[in-house]
């Protein structure tokens, strides 16, 4: 009886994600279009010097064939990922290729001196697939050289470690805010009589069930330049001119905290429901002042809830896409944005998959921790 759903999910869920992960290490774009070059480069063993004439001849033949087939842009784009100006290198050289030549090596070197550069050939070799570490290394701002060493990418092409750090930073701030705001609410819900607690719970569940897009739209209305909050503050003479509350980090923090707060409140609430009031009363009857009793007796018992709620919010925040996309500025975009961008806008699927692999590994690792904490038999 489990089989239908299991098989269904294997086909429509696990397989797509698995094939996406494969794409992060599979690299056949270039070798599909330039098969002779990819094959000839197999014989390039002396990595201290540029390849032999046979490789240059193979590349010339491949380039002409790809132009005739109208697919010359594919290897050019792939090379551009690894070599600065790789696209112009391919197109510029293509324009200068004669019908025949005695030495293709000389032709190429005359067309563009970068063909004498070992790094150019190393990039082509690394892009010749079928397996590559290029995208995964690039996702961590690393590159591999002809001699096999791995070094940080030059500063002007370094982006992803920043994005990763930003993703973790935003998630950490949002998690902290959610726990700070969620704690008093969860405590109140857990200590009120059931009828009143149920009523107050609606105030948590209503936003929880409201569509993400509706809540995002609501925050734009509230936070924008002439939005409700700015107008109210001006009317109260608290500020003279509107504050910039949206399309920046402030907006992202506010809106993401709003969306994720129920995910912090609900686990906290369920843990606090299980904390027995009798310990607090015992502490106080033994002479502890209420503040001390709360901090030393009650609060430690809520740590499982804080950990579970915090991890849950953090995991969900890591993969956030819509809210930063609509409320953040260019400098607030997180990992998900770049994954979607490389998929739909620039068609750099290898990069999208490598960043996706990074995000997936981080999420699953944190989820494993969460599972141990909550102790669900899953």
């Amino acid at each position, binding site marked *: *009886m*489990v*089989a*239908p*759903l299991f098989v*269904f*999910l294997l086909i*429509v*869920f696990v397989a*797509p*994600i698995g094939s*996406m992960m494969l*794409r992060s290490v599979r690299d056949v774009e270039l070798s599909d279009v330039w098969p002779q070059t990819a094959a000839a480069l197999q014989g390039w063993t002396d990595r201290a010097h540029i390849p032999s004439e046979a490789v240059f001849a193979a590349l010339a033949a491949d380039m002409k064939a790809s132009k005739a087939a109208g697919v010359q842009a594919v290897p050019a784009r792939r090379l551009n990922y690894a070599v600065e100006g790789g696209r112009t290198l391919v197109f510029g050289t293509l324009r200068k290729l004669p019908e025949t030549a005695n030495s293709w090596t000389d032709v190429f070197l005359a067309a563009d001196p970068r063909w004498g550069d070992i790094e150019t050939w190393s990039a082509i070799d690394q892009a010749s697939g079928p397996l590559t570490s290029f995208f995964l290394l690039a996702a961590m701002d690393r590159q591999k050289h002809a001699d096999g060493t791995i070094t940080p990418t030059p500063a002007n092409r370094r982006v992803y470690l920043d994005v990763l750090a930003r993703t973790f930073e935003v998630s950490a701030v949002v998690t902290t805010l959610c726990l700070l*705001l969620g704690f*008093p*609410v969860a*405590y*109140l819900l857990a200590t009120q009589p059931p009828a009143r607690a149920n009523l*107050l719970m609606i*105030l*948590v569940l*209503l*936003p929880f*069930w*409201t*569509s*993400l*897009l*509706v809540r*995002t739209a*609501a925050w734009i*209305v509230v936070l*924008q330049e*002439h*939005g*409700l909050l700015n*107008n109210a503050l001006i009317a109260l003479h608290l500020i003279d001119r509107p504050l910039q509350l949206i399309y920046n980090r402030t907006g992202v923090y506010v809106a993401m905290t*709003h969306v994720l*707060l*129920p995910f912090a409140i609900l686990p906290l609430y369920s843990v606090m429901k299980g904390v027995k009031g009798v310990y607090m009363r015992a502490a106080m009857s033994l002479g502890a002042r*209420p*503040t001390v009793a*709360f901090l030393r007796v009650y609060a430690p018992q809520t740590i499982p809830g804080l950990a579970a709620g915090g991890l849950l919010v953090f*995991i969900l925040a*890591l*993969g956030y*896409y*819509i809210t930063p996309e*609509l409320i953040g500025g260019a400098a607030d975009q997180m990992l*998900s944005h770049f*994954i*979607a961008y490389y*998929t*739909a806008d620039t068609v750099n699927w290898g990069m*999208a998959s490598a960043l*996706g692999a990074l995000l*997936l590994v981080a*999420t699953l690792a944190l*989820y494993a921790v969460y599972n141990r904490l909550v102790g669900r038999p*899953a």
Partner: protein
Amino acid sequence: MAGPRRRTLEERFWIAVLWSAAIAVFVFLVAPILAIVPLSFNSREFLTYPLSGFSLRWYQQFFASAEWMRAFKNSFIVGSAATAVATGLGTLAAVGLTMANFRGKGFVMAVLLSPMIVPIVIVAVGFYFFFAPIGLASSYLGLVLAHSALGAPFVVVTVTATLQGFDRSLTRAAASLGAGPLETFFRVVLPLIGPGVASGALFAFAASFDEVVVVLLIAAPEQRTLPREMFAGIRENFSPVITAVATVMIVVSIILLLSLELLRRRTEAMSRAKR
């Protein structure tokens, strides 16, 4: 806490702090959502208070717009179809998981619940790569399959929870009275776990109704759903029509929430009656 003992000043101070903090958070949670509703009845196009006057023009625009109406319809078509698939498969799986013990159960459970955990953008990109070559991108079928996968775990979780309180001697009784497995399932098991199945279905519908990232990547304009159309609207031109659509969507959410609450009360009443 309400004992006969009088509260000390210190306790009263902290209770006041607690209530003010909690009320502030409640306002933060609910106010933005409630603030958008009156704006949808504003007679002029300003998205701020005070309102210029009452009017239904933004609702008229919404109902007169071919794109919005198509999105409205799509949301319900995709949502219902995905809910049907997710509920059918999810209920079966939950019954199977509870009734039988088999090797690798933990692994199977992890796969069944994985759509809840994997970041949505990865799911969407995976579908995009996978569906495009087999012609399922830009089709209703692709969207329904994707949303079914996303909704199924909610059904598995809610139905499994309901089955925890299920008395297994009932199925044995049915079998001893000559009922086949199918008859037992439909006439004994299903009526008892009905509220759980219905809550699972509501969750699955909400998951589809609220989903936008997958739609963003794999749907053609003909399959755009309400959240997708809202995404475009917010991006390109934030008109007050969006506040009207938002209000309609809030009403849908409230209906879902109320139905869930009613189901929960019924389940509670049932389990109390049993004891």
